[in-house]
Each structure stands twice: as C-alpha cells, then as structure tokens.
C-alpha cells in the first residue's frame, strides 16, 4: 500500500543509541547494558540474539521505559519516529506518565515468553483485549468487544466468538500465545516487540506462531523486534540480526552476512554450536552388534483417571501411555521424541517406577520391574538413575553440592567419612567441575554447572541405565553441546545405556543411536536416528521434522510445513 515508506531504510522507525542500563545494587551501580545501539525499520524483522544474561530482555523493556527495579537507564537515547515527522525520546519520558502509556500498547506492542503466565488467570481473554483497545481508542464496550473478536480471528483462533469469553487456562500454550499476539496487535502498533515468544512452545506450535507473525507483518507493515536465543528461529524470520553478549552488541548486520560470514568469535561460536547439532556427534561410541538387551518394554499401558464427586466415580480417562514396546541394548542411547503431552516423560517415569503402569512388561536385565517389590526396586534404582529437565528445581537449595552428590551414597550405605569425600571429589572431576567447590550451595552455580552436578549425582552409584528427561532443554545452546559431550564421554567410559527424552530433534540426532517417535501415548515410529531423520515413514514424523527450523537463511521457504492431524 505504501511501498516507499515500507522499505524506507534511511528513516528507522525506532533507534536505540548508546543505551546504558545499570542495576542499582547495595555494592553500587552495576552495568548490565554497555552502549547498545541498533535500529528498527518498518516492515522488517530485527532479531536480537544472545544467551541468557546477555541483556536482550532488559533492552526490550527499556524501549517501553519499563525497566524493572533496581534497573535504571543511565545513558543513551531511544528515539521513536513512527510517522517520519518528529522524534520522541522514549527514555526522557516519565515512566509512569501519560505520554509513555499512550505509546505502550498503542504504538509499540509487546509479547512475552511465558504464554502460561503472561495472561491474567482471573480475567477472560476478551476482558484483557478489550481493556487494551479501550485504553488507546475511543470506542464503547460493545465495539471494543467486536474488535477483540476480530483480533482473535486474525490470529486464527477457532470460534473467536466463544474464545473471547474464555479464561487463559482453558487454552493450550500455542493458543495463549496467539491470544497474546492478538492483544498486542489489537491497536495496530507500529512496532511489535516479541521477547522469546516461541521458546516455551513445541516445535510444531513454534513454526505456526512464526508463520503467523510473518503474515501479520506483511498485512500490517509493522517493525518487529524478535528476541531469541535460537539461531534456527533467527534463520527463519530475521531480516537484520543483532548479536548481544554480556550487555554489548558484538555484531550486527544483514541476516545473510551474519550467517555466511560471521565476524565476531561469539557469533561464530553460537553458529558453530547450532551447526554441530545438525549432525551426529563425532565422539559417539556405537555399541557393538552382539550386545544383549538391557531393557525390554512390552505393551506398556498407563491410564490417568479423573475422579469426581462424592463416590470418586471415574469421569474421564487419559491414556498417557497406550501400548508402548521397545528394547534397549547395552551401551545404547535411545531417544524418545514427541510434543508435550505425547507421553514421553511418562514412559521414562514408568521405567523408573515413579509411576505404576497399569499393565505391560518391563524387563530390566532379566528382572521383572512390574512385579518388583520395594526391596527389589531399591536395588534396581541403584542401577537406573534419572536426570531431570530443570537444573534449578531439581537441586535442593539448602544442601551443599557435597551433600547433594553424597546423598545417594549415604542412603545406600556405600561410603562414609573420608572415603565419601574422596568419591564426591572424584565425581566432580569426572563431570568437569573443581572438587574445591563441593562446599558451595547450588545458587552459586550457573545452569550448565548445575546440570553437571545433577549428572554427578546420577552417576554416583555407577548405574547401568540413565533416563535423561529433557536434560538440555533449559540450557543455552553452547552449554547444551557441552553437557551432551559430557554425557557421551561418560557413556563411553562407563558403558552406560541411555533413554534420552527430548522434544528437540537436533539434540536427539547429536546424541542418540536410535529414536522412538511418540504421539498421543503410542510409538508411531522407531529406528536408527539417521534413517528416521533422512527418511521418515510415518506422517507424524514427517510433520514433526518439517517444523524444525533450519539454521540457514538461504533455505528459508524451501520447505512446506504441515501439522499432523490424527484420524479420528
């Protein structure tokens, strides 16, 4: 409609110039952003890339002048020029004043990472969208409601008339994020800031949200600032890329320039970490062919029953695991991949007998774990250990690292006194941590280090089988490969077998010998990892693979995405 302003690269709609942000701590001012500069242009998507702690989110909030306390903007300017007529310095406005509040939501919309908690749980979706509309436009309630329905329709939410009166917790994660986008776009903003909008979503949902944002951008001609740590997503959506590290912009430029000829070592490292995940690990030790089975699972079933009323009648049955069978060889790594709700975590927990399956066979090295009593389970749990997703939640913050790692040794009466200390020190060295750190508490460690502690705890009893449930999902990409390499090293040294649960195909490809694809409680396809990735047979596997972002911008748009619809 307005081609010359749409592509007007000389007049950026928003300029961030030498932005400095400090956190006012007791010890004095502590800078988190050091002179950050970049521009946003109408009709273009600028990706801000960096690992956690690089200052991406705080930059986004600074644009709306809502830096959380104790942060203060202590240098630089953010100028906003939506019409090409005059600049407004956003940093100079009163953070609680009317002027900035008119821009927030009205001219600059924002969506956040957590679709689960970014919408109020006690107000309807409609209520929250109507509020956004009426704050900036002079319309009555009925008109605003009609506009809210339109906005929901635009983000492809089915039955928008009904959805408008629903609460956020009645929606799935993807639907909530759609509602968030609808709310942010309800007032037709000139700039949309998206802070990791797809990180908490499944790959298939992520692909849909990215497509949606792209088509809305062409429709509305807005500038998008897209914050992410995922280079694959960057390759899918960005026109311009800004790479941030520890509060500095280390590199910025055109998408092809960044991907084809990265200049800064940090950019190269980020890209390298992604590229490495494009293929199987070189250090992978394949089990030799004549190894026997360590685990055989046959026709496993687990139903969750929803009970209601005074007599606890069963009103609803969810088949979480619906006839799962597989075998695992000694020294082999089997990946289980699937969307959230596919039952992959439940399978893992059934094998560890955290859950009691309803029926089936779990044969661990000749022992029937289904029928095992408490004493036998205590024995088998020494050999079958679990690693969980969230290294922040799975370590007790009130125990020192030494206590955490020593706990399984003490509980099983294996070591005590000086011997115990030596073993903990040895375990820490094995996972690549300094043994002198053992008296510290978990909060003193970064996410990657914590996951190493979790691994040390898991291998303390010299297990035979490790069930790793999304062990790298909460970690940054560069740390992700480090943890995977650690697990590979341990697998080679100790001859461990792995069941590796993940939603991330790249991680599975890097780590696993074989992979099982789960959908709605069943394994739809199982086989050699490379074979499944290069030549998927089941339509669901094909759909899943088609949603994985390709970290190569020149291949953008070459792949047809589709979502798998199961037959009724």
């Amino acid at each position, binding site marked *: 409609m307005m081609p010359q302003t749409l592509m007007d690269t000389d007049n950026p709609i928003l300029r961030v110039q030498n932005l400095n942000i400090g956190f006012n701590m007791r010890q004095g001012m502590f800078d988190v952003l050091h002179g950050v500069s970049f521009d946003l242009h109408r009709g273009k998507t600028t990706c801000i890339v960096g690992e956690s702690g690089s200052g991406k989110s705080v930059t986004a909030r600074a644009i709306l002048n*809502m830096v959380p306390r104790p942060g203060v903007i202590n240098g630089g300017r953010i100028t906003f020029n939506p019409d090409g007529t005059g600049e407004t310095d956003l940093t100079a406005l009163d953070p609680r004043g009317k002027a900035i*509040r008119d821009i*927030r939501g009205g001219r600059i*919309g924002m969506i956040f990472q957590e679709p689960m908690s*970014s919408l*109020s749980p006690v107000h309807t979706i409609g209520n*929250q969208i109507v509020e956004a509309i009426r704050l900036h436009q002079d319309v009555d309630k009925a008109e605003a409601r009609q506009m809210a329905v339109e906005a929901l329709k635009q983000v492809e939410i089915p039955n928008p008339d009904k959805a408008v009166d629903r*609460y956020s917790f009645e929606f799935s994660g993807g639907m909530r994020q759609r509602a968030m986008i609808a709310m942010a776009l309800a007032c037709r903003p000139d700039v949309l800031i998206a802070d990791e909008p797809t990180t908490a979503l499944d790959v298939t949902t992520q692909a849909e949200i990215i497509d949606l944002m792209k088509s809305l951008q062409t429709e509305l001609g807005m500038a998008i600032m897209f914050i992410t740590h995922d280079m694959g997503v960057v390759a899918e959506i960005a026109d311009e890329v800004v790479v941030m590290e520890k509060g500095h912009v280390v590199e910025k430029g055109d998408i092809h320039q960044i991907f084809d000829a990265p200049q800064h070592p940090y950019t190269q490292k980020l890209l390298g970490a992604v590229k490495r995940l494009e293929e199987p690990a070189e250090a992978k030790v394949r089990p030799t062919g004549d190894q026997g089975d360590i685990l055989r699972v046959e026709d496993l079933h687990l139903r969750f029953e929803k009970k209601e009323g005074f007599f606890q009648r069963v009103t609803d049955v969810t088949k979480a695991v619906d006839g799962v069978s597989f075998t695992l060889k000694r020294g082999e790594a089997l990946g289980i991949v699937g969307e959230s709700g596919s039952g992959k975590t439940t399978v893992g927990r059934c094998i560890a007998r955290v859950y009691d399956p309803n029926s089936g066979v779990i044969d661990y090295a000749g022992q029937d774990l289904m029928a095992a009593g408490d004493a036998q389970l205590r024995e088998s749990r020494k050999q079958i250990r679990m690693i969980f997703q969230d290294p922040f939640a799975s370590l007790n913050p009130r125990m020192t690292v030494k206590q955490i790692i020593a706990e399984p040794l003490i509980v099983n009466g294996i070591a005590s006194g000086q011997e115990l200390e030596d073993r903990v020190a040895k375990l820490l060295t094995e996972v690549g941590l300094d043994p002198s750190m053992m008296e510290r508490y978990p909060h003193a460690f970064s996410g990657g280090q914590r996951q190493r502690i979790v691994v040390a705890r898991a291998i303390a009893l010299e297990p035979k089988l490790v069930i790793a449930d999304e062990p790298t999902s909460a970690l940054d990409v560069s740390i992700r490969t480090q943890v995977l390499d650690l697990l590979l090293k341990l697998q080679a040294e100790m001859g461990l077998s792995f069941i590796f649960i993940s939603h991330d195909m790249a991680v599975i490809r890097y780590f696993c010998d074989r992979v099982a694809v789960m959908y709605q409680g069943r394994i739809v396809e199982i086989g050699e990892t490379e074979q499944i990735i290069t030549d998927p047979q089941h339509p669901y596997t094909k759909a899943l693979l088609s949603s994985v972002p390709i970290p190569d911008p020149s291949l953008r748009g070459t792949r047809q995405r589709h979502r798998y619809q199961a037959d009724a």
Partner: protein
Amino acid sequence: MIPFMFAISVVAFLLIQAPPGDYLTTYIAKLGESDEILDQASIDNLRARFGLDQPLYVQYFKWVGNILQGDFGMSFEWRQPVSDLVWERMGLTMCLSFATLLFTWAVAFPIGVYSAVRKYSIGDYIATTIGFIGLATPNFLLALILMYIGVVHFGSDVGGLFSSEYKNAPWSWGKVWDLMKHLWLPVIVLGTSATASLIRIMRANLLDELNKPYVDTARAKGLSEFWLIMKYPVRVALNPFISTIGWVLPNLVSGAVVTAIVLSLPTAGPLMLQALLSQDMYLAGAFVLLLSSLTVIGMLISDILLVLLDPRVRYE
C-alpha cells in the same frame, strides 16, 4: 452439608456429656455447700424429671428432635428456655464478629497493598512494625490499655456493649446508637491481631504476584500503575481475604472469651464458659452446636465467594 451437620451435633452432644457427672452432681455439690442434703429419692426424682436417667442415645435423639422443632430445651441453671438466652447473645456476637471483620478488611487491605507495592519503604517498615506489635500483644492486655485510655483521657463509658440505661431497654434507635458508641473498643481489641496477620498475608501474597509476567503484560498495554495493580495482582492476591470469613467466627468465640470477660461483653463466650463450668448441658450444647454450624456456614460462604471470584477454582 447435612451429614456434616449431623456429625457436628453428635460430637457436640458427646462433648457436653464427656465430663464426669451431670448437672445434678454439680447441683447437689452446690446444695451441700449450703448444708442442704437431698435424699436419694428426690435425686432420682430430679434425675427422671430432667431425663438424665435414660441411656445416652435416647437423650441425644430427644435433644436433636427438639432442636429440629426449634426447642433447645431448658437451661438448668437459669430456669429459662435456652433459645431465649442464646438468641440475644448470639445476635450480639454476630454483630460484633461482622463489625470486626469489616474493620479488619478496611484496615488490612490498604495497608497490605501499600506495604507490598512500596516494599522496604519507611511506610512499609512502620506498617510491618505495627503489625508485629499487633500480633504479639495479647488481646486482653490491649483491652485493658484501651479501657484505661478511654476512661482516663476521654472519660467515656467503656466495658459492655450498652450503657446502663439501655442495658435492659427494648431495641430502639437510641439503643443502636449506644451500641455503636460501645462497639469500637471491642472491635479494635478483637480485630488487631487478625488485621496484623492479614496485612502480612496480603503483603506476602501480593509480593509474589507483583513479579508475575501478566503484570508486565498489563503494564506493556499502557495501563496506569494504580489500576494495573488493583485490577491484576491485587485481584489474585485477594483470596485469603475471602477465606477469613470462615475463621473469624470461631476465632471470636473461642479466642475472645478472656477479652469478653475483661470488657464484660454480653456475647456468647462468657455465657458458654459459665454453662460448661456448671454442666448446664442444654445451654452449653446449644452454643457448641450453633457455633459449629456458623463455622460451617461461614466456610461454605467463603468457598462460594472464592468460586465466584476465581475462575480457576470453578474450572477444577
């Protein structure tokens, strides 16, 4: 609800039957003090007249049966129908509870919100300090201090809920006004500790909610800070306020007996204590039953309000 009330009536009855002896034992002991000896025949006679010679379950069903017809029996001690005694007292207790509840909310809500939003400000420290003092001060001590201040500095008539000229007068506007004049003291005394704890609860809850992403979302919409806080985090943090309806009643009755005696309030507490001491079983039973029922009803009301307020509860 109904089975629950039934269970309560059984427990209430067993409770009042639990102490050894019955009203007659106390009565005989009392007579013995004034050197009057009853012969066995007249004791048996009395026992039969009061129905105390029958087995427990018969007594229970008689009692419950009469209650269902609105008859709570006769008080042994006061020689009056229990209902006459109880209703006046319960009415005043309810009135006092309700006033205390309103006072607690009215004070705790703004202070709690303020001290959460302005965390670690001077105002927060002052509110927190007062809150801790309020929690730590025993009610009866506060009652004595306030009475002293009231009498010495304002020369007002404290103690009781009515002035002497209205005490036995029928209800009139004058009497209501008189009640209002006397109500503030017990309301403050009884409400202080609840207010203090509610401030703490409100502050802690709101602090949790203030950092939730949906608050940021609302801020990014351009909502002003005041409405933002009122509409979103406060709304979610409000649940404990509703829950207080359930526990304010039993708290007032069981916890406030000492205060009620110090302030000579004509509420249920002191009379119930007296009834229990003299094993006046029908009177005591009626109190226990009514208070338990009110607690259950209070809980029910707060649950219903919670469901209305929080769609997440409804969804479950």
